[in-house]
């Protein structure tokens, strides 16, 4: 009974979705599809927006500065902390799993 109902209703859903799409004028709806949420193109806009940014950024030297190493060091240390925590958590859970199975 439920299966039959689902079979009747699913095409209806598809139809409704198309109607919703048709309700939107073509030039705007075509621009971004459902993949908007797919995040693989999430950076598409972030990159191209800097039109308005100040141009003095361009004069920066391409070679890595000292700050870059410092920032990287900080990020690596934070990651080391997280990794240590995760590793201990993993081992504790594994230990508990073993204990429970013995009982």
């Amino acid at each position, binding site marked *: 009974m439920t299966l039959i109902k689902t079979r009747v209703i699913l095409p209806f859903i598809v139809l409704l*979705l198309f109607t*919703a*799409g048709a309700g*939107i*004028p073509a030039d*705007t*709806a075509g*621009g*971004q*599809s*459902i993949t*908007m*949420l*797919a*995040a*693989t*193109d*999430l*950076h*598409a*806009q*972030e*990159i*191209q*927006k*800097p*039109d*308005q*940014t100040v141009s003095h*950024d*361009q004069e*920066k030297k*391409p070679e*890595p*500065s000292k*700050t*870059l*190493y410092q*920032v*990287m060091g900080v*990020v*690596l240390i934070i*990651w080391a902390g997280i*990794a240590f925590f*995760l*590793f201990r*958590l*993993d081992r504790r*859970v594994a230990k*508990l*799993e073993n204990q*429970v199975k013995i*009982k």
Partner: protein
Amino acid sequence: MKVIPTALKSVYLLVPVAIIMAFLWAPPAQVLGDASRILYFHVPLAWVSILAFIVAGIFSIAYLVDKKHTFTGLDEKAYNSAALGLAFTILTVIAGSIWAKISWGVFWNWDPRETSIVIILLIYIAYFSIQGAMASSENRGMVGSAYLILAMVTLPFFAFLVPRIYPSLHPDPIINADRKIFLDDQMRSTLAVAIVSFTMLYCYILHIMNRMMKLKKHIEEIYHDAD
């Protein structure tokens, strides 16, 4: 069965590699300079938050379809994935708004991407409110899963809607004519490594959470048997 947990342990290697690549190997972008390196953290975070959302939805659907309970704890797995997704979404928003501050001068301007991430954030918040309100009910899994599915199926409407709404609120065109991304091969491969390592990190934490959930259930059963 043992292969997957071992493979997941590769995060300990992958994440530092991704960090070092992002800072040292990838060249700075033309206009943004070194600030563009947020890309290698922001994009993977956003990808993981959406992946967690989809995984939670799939677990919920499986939970509702699986009437004979052949799999255990599907609702709790959906809950765990959503909890992780919430954390990653908040991180995405923070990283994104720092980047927005650097490149556009404001922390927040309701760009279509920001809007979609806020909608996902709202859905998570509503999901956790309903889960919290039903803490002691046995219908918790059913209602939570039904809500997550209902929220998921409305997302395509946002995909139709968000680009349509924006011209009315933003007089200046945000979506430019050329939607190409200028990434060279080094940037592309760094981004790929970062995405893979963050996905692995998500899977690893989800795996640990699910094991803890299973342990908790098991211990409760032992406790009840002893009574």
